[in-house]
Each structure stands twice: as C-alpha cells, then as structure tokens.
C-alpha cells in the first residue's frame, strides 16, 4: 500500500522512515509462522466508543514495554534506561530517528511537553501518582533530543514499571507537540483555554492527531459507530527480515453493543480476529460453526484469580456489620459457605477451577519454587465448602440466637442480613447465577443474604463510594507494584474503598487505616523504596502471607477462565495460547506484537 506512495514521492523511502535501530518484534510463541505478506483489511468490532479494547491490541507505544510473559521490561521507544545509585534519577535514551505518523521527528520534547501540561494548573493533567515521592512531584529535564532525565525527591525504583504499564500512560505522554501546540492557549491566539486542546487530544476521536501506533486513526464515522485505521508509515517496529510492520493495510472496526449481534457476526465469518468481548457461554456455538464461518477458536489464559471475586466491604456503613466483618472468623465463615464447585459447574460449565481469590498465578512475584509454593497455599486458603465449619465459627462468635425464620441475630438483636450487589441478569449472567448459589449457601448458615440488582451505573457507583456490603468483581493482576489494590489498599476500590481513599488523597478524605490495613500499606511503602527486585518480590509475598492468615478479604469462587479468541483462517501469526488476557495493566495482546499478524488470502 505504501510502495506506490513512495513512488509518487508522497512518502520518503523506507530507510528514512524507520529509526536507525528499529525494534524487532518478538515472537517466542507457538503459532508464529514466519514473516508475512503485506496487504489486507482486518475486520473486527468494539464495544465501547473509546476504543479501549483496540488500544489494548495496537495502542501501545510506550518508552519501555512489558515482556511477553510479564516477567520484566524490554526496550520500546526508549532504547535504554538507567537509574543512579540511590534511585533518585532515571535517565532514558530514545532511539535515533523515531518519527510520528506524519513524519515529524519524535524527540524528548514530547515527554517534556506532557510534563509541562501536568504542572500547568489550567489543564486537566496532573503529575501522576507514581512520580511523587513524599508528596513531591518529579522534575523532568531534556538535555538533548534523545535524552530524558527524571529527578525524584527520593528513591523511586518502580518508575520504569509505571512507564510501561497500561496503554493509558503512553497515550498521555506521547503527545505530539508540533501538532498540539496550535491549540495551546500560550502559543496560539485563537484559544484562551484548553477546551479545544483537550478535544483535539483525544486519540480515539481525532484522525488528524499524529500518533506512534502501528495503525493510525483514519476515519471515525457516525459518532464512533464505524472506525477505520490505516498503516502508520513511520512505525518503528520491524520483523526479523527488517521489513517494516504492520503487514495489514487497514483495520475496520464497528461498534456493536449487543452481545447477540456479536455472536452472529462471528458465526457469519465477518470477524478476522477478536481477542476480547467474546463470551465463553457461546463456546459450543462457535465450535460448531467453525467450518461454515471459516475461523478457528483459540483459548488464551486469562490469568484470573476470581471470576468473580466477592468483595466484603471492610468499612461498611453499618457499625454492627463492620465489627463482624473485621473479625477474621466471620470472613472465614463466609468463605466456607461458598460452594465453589457448584459455582464452577453452573456458571462456567466446569471449565474453570474453584479456588480462593488470588491474583494471577503467572504473576512474576511467584516465580521460583518458594513463590509457587506460597501461591498454591493462597489458592487453597479457606477455599473448602464446609457448612459445618462455617456454622461452628459463627457459633463461636456468639451469634447463636436465632429469630423465628431461623436466621441468626446480631448482638443488637437485629437479623443478620447481608445485602449483595449483583449486576442485572441480562448484563452478566454468570455473576447473577453465582450470587444465587452463594445466597443459598449463606442462608444455610443462618445469614439472610439478599440480592440487590441496582441498574447499570448505580452498581459501580455503590462500589466506588463504599456503600455496599458485599459486591463482586473479576480479579486478575500480573503486577502488584503498579496495580497494588488486590493486596494493598491504596485506592478506593474493591474491599477497601474508604481506606484506599485515605491513601490516595494523602490523608485528606476517607478512613485512616488501622491494624492489618495499616500493616499492608506500610509494606507497600517499603516496596516503593526497595532497590533490589527480589527483595521487592519478597515483600509482596509477605503481604500475601498476611492475606492468607488474617484474610480472606476477598472471597473466591472460580478462576482461571479460558479466554476465547476467534481468529479467521486467513489471519495468521496469532499465538495459539497467548499472553495473559485478563489484567489490563500489562496490555495484552499488544505485548505479543499483533502488528506481525498477516492475512493470507489463499487457503493453505
């Protein structure tokens, strides 16, 4: 596609478009068939107008990248980086000859510009949480075009991990100054504020904005209903033979909010490759329709530790419930009342594994024999369905009085009722079914479990504001350093909304941590200061041990969901069982370089 543009002089030749030392795409996975042919269009669908799932595929152009197995970092736009001895200065060196999708050179000015915006009070960007040490933000210097120097107020060993995490950070700091500057109020006469700037800065909406993605946004039609992307002629990644990626010329993606239409699209063979938004529930249908639709069904690990995990609000609004929840026996009793095998059978047809709530088994904190042993312990902690044990624990807590219907009474004489927030059936059948099973289990223990289905946004809001007692969320995480909240209460999420809020707001709002929560936060603070990576892993494992002994804080149901990935038979170089798809932080499948997929028109 690009050759004729070069011939017409619209584009410089390849040598000028690639950086001096381009990144070679890694392919250490089964399913790689070799360098591919150019051409073709990739048809797929998306579910949200913000193209979040697409950015997970090909919106990842960070300074450094997560490796395929998420066990460390590899070079991205930056070819090298290094800390000084005490971890207060991080120096990065960019590749030479990087260019934006419009040909303009990519230099350190982009990062500097971004940080300038962060410090600018008029703009919505603020210095990210990871650059603050002891409340003080970093300073950024760019001594030359290819060097970025970040100076922190104290040791900040986790900074490179943050730079690599998620598609969102690189989406922010890769800001094309040469294009955006005309909307900046200080540099332009037309605009007094940042409103137009922010609007033009939207990577999923503005085709004129240059980007570093493998496919650049070409058109957005009908309010995001139909989006096309085209090959970025200046993309910095090549294959083994030095040919520039991606091979595929164009990507066409439709907005399809209804799950049934998505099923039909796949069956009709209209989808070339889809990593997410494919439901396990319809697996039988997909398997049956393989020949007619001309696609293959792959199963990728999701690395999930809880589908879903049951969140128990540590800071419940009701003081009597709060007291009960903070008693470790109560939580162990609740855990013992969940029939995980049944959850697995009913909601997931036995395709998952019943276990306690954990993060991903593949996480790099648990590599090595000691780590694996600890993880195995965590998986099975309080994961047995044992009503006798549950009843015994509750009796031990003096909850022996019962009312006329057989439900236990609390210390204040009221019935022991737990309200469980469940998403509506049509949105999420599995969580709904599991809610029913758990309800039956807890009722058998004498606890009146009531299911509450708030509509849509309301459910999420209740979780966020900490107004729930029991709620649900899928749990999967590969890296606790950059996404600590399944173990460390650093954000208002999951089981610790109010303590997390306290930490996040620097002590301004929320509830100050005590006891076990405080210990966990202290460990996390130590992690941030720790230089040695193995010691850091050790600290994480220490925290996990606390979870095993004094937990559970999240209750598990079933986990290790096999993620269904659909790939058309013409679409090649897709990993047969790719990188972990569950957690968003490690940006899968982008770490498997989907730009090296190609379309082979003739059947093999």
């Amino acid at each position, binding site marked *: 596609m690009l050759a004729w543009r070069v011939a017409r002089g619209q584009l410089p030749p390849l040598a000028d478009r690639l950086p001096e030392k381009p990144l070679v795409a890694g392919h250490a996975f089964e399913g790689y068939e070799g360098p591919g042919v150019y051409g073709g269009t990739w048809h797929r669908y998306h579910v949200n107008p913000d193209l979040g799932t697409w950015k997970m595929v090909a919106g990842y152009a960070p300074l450094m990248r997560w490796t395929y197995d998420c066990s460390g970092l590899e070079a991205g736009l930056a070819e090298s980086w290094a800390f000084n001895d005490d971890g207060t200065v991080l120096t990065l060196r960019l590749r030479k000859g990087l260019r934006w999708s419009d040909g303009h050179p990519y230099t350190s000015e982009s990062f500097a510009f971004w940080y300038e915006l962060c410090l600018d009070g008029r703009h*919505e960007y603020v210095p990210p949480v990871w650059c603050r040490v002891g409340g003080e933000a970093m300073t950024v210097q760019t001594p030359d075009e290819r060097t970025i120097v970040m100076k922190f107020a104290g040791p900040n060993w986790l900074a490179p991990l943050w730079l690599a995490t*998620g598609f969102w950070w690189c989406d922010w700091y890769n800001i094309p100054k040469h294009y955006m500057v005309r909307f900046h109020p200080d540099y332009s006469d037309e605009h007094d504020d940042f409103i137009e700037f922010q*609007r033009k800065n939207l990577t999923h909406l503005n085709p004129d904005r240059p980007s570093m993605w493998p496919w650049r946004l070409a058109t957005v039609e009908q309010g995001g209903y139909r989006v096309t992307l085209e090959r970025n002629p200046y993309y910095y990644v090549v294959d083994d033979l030095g040919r520039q990626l991606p091979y595929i010329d164009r990507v066409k993606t439709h907005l399809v909010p209804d799950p049934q*239409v998505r099923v039909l699209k796949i069956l009709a063979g209209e989808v070339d490759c889809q990593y997410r938004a494919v439901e396990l529930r319809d697996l039988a249908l997909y398997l049956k329709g393989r020949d007619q639709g001309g696609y293959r069904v792959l199963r990728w690990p999701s690395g999930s530790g809880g589908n879903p995990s049951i969140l128990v609000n540590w800071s419940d609004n009701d003081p009597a419930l709060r007291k009960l929840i903070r008693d470790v026996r109560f939580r162990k009793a609740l855990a013992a009342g969940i029939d995980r095998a049944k959850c697995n059978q009913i909601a997931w047809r036995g395709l998952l594994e019943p276990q306690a709530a954990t993060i991903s088994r593949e996480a790099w904190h648990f590599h090595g024999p000691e780590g694996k042993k600890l993880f195995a312990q965590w998986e099975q902690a309080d994961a047995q369905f044992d009503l006798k044990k549950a009843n015994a624990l509750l009796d031990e807590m003096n909850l022996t009085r019962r009312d006329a219907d057989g439900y236990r009474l609390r210390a204040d004489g009221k019935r022991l009722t737990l309200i469980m927030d469940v998403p509506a059936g049509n949105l999420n059948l599995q969580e709904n079914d599991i809610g029913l099973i758990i309800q039956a289990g807890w009722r058998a223990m004498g606890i009146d479990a009531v299911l509450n289905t708030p509509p849509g946004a309301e459910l999420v809001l209740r979780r*966020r504001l900490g107004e729930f007692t029991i709620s649900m969320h899928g749990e999967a995480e590969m890296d606790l350093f950059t996404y600590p909240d399944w173990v460390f209460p650093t*954000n208002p999420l999951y089981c610790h909304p109010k303590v997390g809020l306290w930490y996040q707001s620097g002590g301004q709002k929320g509830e100050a941590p005590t006891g076990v929560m405080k210990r966990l936060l202290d460990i996390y603070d130590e992690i941030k200061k720790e230089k040695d990576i193995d010691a850091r892993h050790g600290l994480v494992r220490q925290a996990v041990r606390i979870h095993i002994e004094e937990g559970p804080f999240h209750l598990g149901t079933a986990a290790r969901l096999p993620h269904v990935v659909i790939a058309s038979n013409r679409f090649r170089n897709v990993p047969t069982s790719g990188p972990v798809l569950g957690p968003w932080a490690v940006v899968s499948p982008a770490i498997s370089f989907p730009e090296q997929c190609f379309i082979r028109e003739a059947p093999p």
Partner: protein
Amino acid sequence: MIAYVIRRCLLAIPTLLAITMISFVIIQLPEGDYLDRKIQQLEEQYGDSSSLARVEELRVRYGLDRPMPVRYAKWIWGFVRGDFGESFEYEREVNELIWERLAFTVLISVASLLFTYAVAIPLGIYSATHQYKWSDHLLTFLSFVGMSLPAFLVALALMVFAFEVFGVPLFGLFSSYYEGAPWTWGKFADLLKHLWIPVVVVGLNGTAGLMRIMRGNLLDVLGQPFVLTARAKGLAERVVVFKHAVRIAVNPLISILGMSLPTILSGSAIVSIVLGLPTVGPLLLKSLLSEDIYLAGTLITMLSVLLVAGNLLADIALAWVDPRIRYE
C-alpha cells in the same frame, strides 16, 4: 382554521418548556453524577489519584458543581442558540452525535409508521366488514400473535432465522461492501434489504393494535343510525363504508398518530440495540445508563419536540377531517 392552528402552536411552547424541565430533573435523579462514575472508571484502570483533581476540573467546566436551576438555565440558553452541550462519554458536541444518527432514526421510524398504518387500516376495514367470518377470525388471531411477542425476541429470532436460512447476515443497515460507499442504486437496494427486519419488528406491535382499534371503531360506527339510514337510502355498501363510516372511524386513529411517535422512536431503541443499527435509540439508552446528562436531555427534548409536532399535525388533521372540532 388558521386561528386554530396558530392557537395550538402557541400552546405548544409552554408544554415544551415543561417537558425539558422535567426531563432534566428526572435524568439526574439516580445518585451521583456522570463524573463520579468516570472517576471510578479512571481509577480502576489507571490506579492513580491524579484523576481526582482532573475530574474536579471537569466538574467545574461542565457546571456540575452549580445548583440545578443554574445548570438548567445554562443548558436551555445554549439549546436555543443551537449549542446542545457536550457529551461526557463521547467527548464531542451533542449535535454532532445526533445529526449523524438522526437521519437513519427518522428513516426507520417513518418507514415503520407507514408500514403500520398501511397494513393496519385496510386489514381493520376488511375485518370489520367481514365480521365473524373465518377470515376475520384468522386476522384477529394473527394480530394477537403479533401483539403479544416481545420485540427484542422477535428481532433476534428474525435475524437468526435470516442468517440460518439465507446464510446472509443482516445486521446493521448496510453490508460491508456498501458501507461507506457513495450512494448508488445498489446501495439503496442493500438498504432496503436490511431495512425490512427493523421495520417489520418495530411495526408489528403497532400494526396489530391499530388493526384491532380500527376494526372496533368501524364496527361501532357501522352500528350507528346514520349508517342504517344510508343503507336504507339504497347506497351501495362500499359507499356507505368508505365515504361515511370510515371517515368517522378514522377519527381516533389520527389522534393515536401523535401518540405513536415516541413509542415508535423509543420502541425502536431496543430493536436497534438488538440489531446493531446506527440510530438514536442505542445512543439514548447508553446516555441514560451513564447519566450523560446533556446528551440524554437533548435526545429526550428532541423526542418531545417530535411528539408535540406530531400531536399538532394530528390535531390539525382531526380538525380538517371532523369540522365539528374546529369551532371550540
């Protein structure tokens, strides 16, 4: 007649105003606002506190920190000038979002409406004039079946059926080949091919109901003394039915016309979602679910405008058909 029309138009304005006020309030009844949700979403993804400050900025910019009357006043003032505010979720101007989809929405709605009336009225007349014959019973039965099936199920079933039997996927309004292509006869034919499912499904409920009403009305009218007189006068049955009876029987149907509009528009919302159509319906639903107040408010107001306009037309048509109404 003209005076009547002008009077009705003037009356419509306070109605519209009241509508916008109430809808603005109702949309914000559920707890919290869009930004609370946005924070949640951001934090879950990004796990950082920077979004707190950023969201406070957004809050000020969108005026969500002001009391409700102020927000409403700002919005209405912009409305009048053609600035419908900005959608939070899509981060674009509301009018951009709407115009792009409005054409197809109107197309489907009008087509469904035409389908409904074109099918229901003749069938209703036929059914009434052949009362108690087997054809009447058959039509009655079919209309009941049509009325009693939920639209989303029928939409899905039709789509699956079309796919299984014809092997051709019929979601959206165009097949991939024609999408984005310039308008040609081929594209038009493709559109029609895709259009029949949504039109049939949206129209089905309405058709059946309307047919019953038409039948009922006509039977009522046919039982009236003036009809007996007309027959006694020796007029042909056809003349009696069409020239005299139908004209009166159609009376309530015209007032239903105004009422059908929001049903068709928002009833087709569910169908559009199921069938994946680029119309206003799914937009409205999503905006309500995420409390995207300016978008939702504008959409509801658009619907109300259409309704009021529809009623106006219906009233005018009614006055024209039945002269007694004019002199009030």
